[in-house]
């Protein structure tokens, strides 16, 4: 029980540190945008033997923040909920870099910390790639992410999980402050 509380504190503090440490002192403008995702994937892990199974389907919403239209760093906080088996809630604070590869295509790579916080905890690093396609009225994306989860009370003893998730969704602007 104490271990669980301690793990949740680490997750919350690390999330706040990433979100609060934003170099906004010299920024001329700040822009907020959002993303909505839905997807699933595969999970591998070793219990008594290696298992591979489909990951629970999930929905997620992201809030992105960037300054002066810089492509790096872009700070993002994703709130993710698995909706199969048992409903879970997770947060993924991350830092992104976005680069254009054409008039209507862009690629975003990111790294972050994936933390399941309820009903049980699971904690580990995650990296991923977005491919954005500007269709005129809407920007859709496809995302591949990979996370490794060595810690948390959601894991059976001695188990480390690896998740590869595939999702799709769309991006939308929220607001912009400054010049």
């Amino acid at each position, binding site marked *: 029980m104490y271990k669980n509380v301690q793990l949740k504190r680490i997750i919350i503090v690390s999330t706040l540190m990433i979100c609060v440490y934003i170099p906004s002192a010299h920024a001329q403008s700040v822009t907020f945008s959002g993303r909505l995702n839905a997807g699933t994937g595969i*999970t*591998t*892990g070793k*219990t*008594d*033997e290696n*298992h591979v*199974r489909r990951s*629970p389907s999930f929905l997620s919403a992201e809030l992105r923040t960037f300054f002066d239209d810089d492509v790096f760093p872009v700070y993002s906080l994703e709130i993710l909920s*698995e909706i199969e*088996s*048992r*409903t*879970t809630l997770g947060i993924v604070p991350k830092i992104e870099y976005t680069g254009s590869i054409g008039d209507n295509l862009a690629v975003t790579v990111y790294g972050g910390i994936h933390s*399941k916080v309820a*009903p*049980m905890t*699971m904690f580990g690093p995650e990296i991923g790639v977005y491919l954005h396609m500007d269709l005129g009225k809407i920007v859709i994306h496809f995302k591949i992410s990979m996370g490794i989860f060595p810690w948390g*009370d*959601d*894991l*059976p003893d001695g*188990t480390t*999980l690896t998740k590869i998730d595939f999702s799709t969704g769309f991006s939308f602007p929220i607001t912009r402050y400054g010049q």
Partner: protein
Amino acid sequence: MKTRSVFFVNLLTLLCLYGCSVNGNPCLRHSDCAGNEECIAGVCSIPSDSSISDGGNDIDDITDIQDAVDVDDITDTQDAADIDDITDVMDTIDSSDVSDSGNMDVTDSSGDYTDTVDSGIPPVPPANFYLFIRSLGFYTQNSPVEKNQHNYKVR
């Protein structure tokens, strides 16, 4: 309409809290299983209730109960009812001891102990019971009345 929406909200709440029972299904983490299950050795299973061992019924208590009934006590009891007494009781059993009620009074040789034993013989009803039945027009084939009163003819 309102009742239906309340029902669906409750249903969603239950699903969110407990999920579907997937007992026996493969799993990789506890969240793959229902709320009352855990992922043990790659399979969803209901964990053994640890409260049984923590509730005070532990092995020490059982051992204490066994200690209270020790071997000496059993031996003493057997000494009190020894084989001679049993033989005496059997000697006193006679067929004449079976009463009309089917029970048998057993007394040991010293006369200190008397007990009533069911002999297995059904109780014998009085003879006038069968006469009463006959007066009503019924006929009982194997009644003691028939065996003892041969001159009686059924009308």
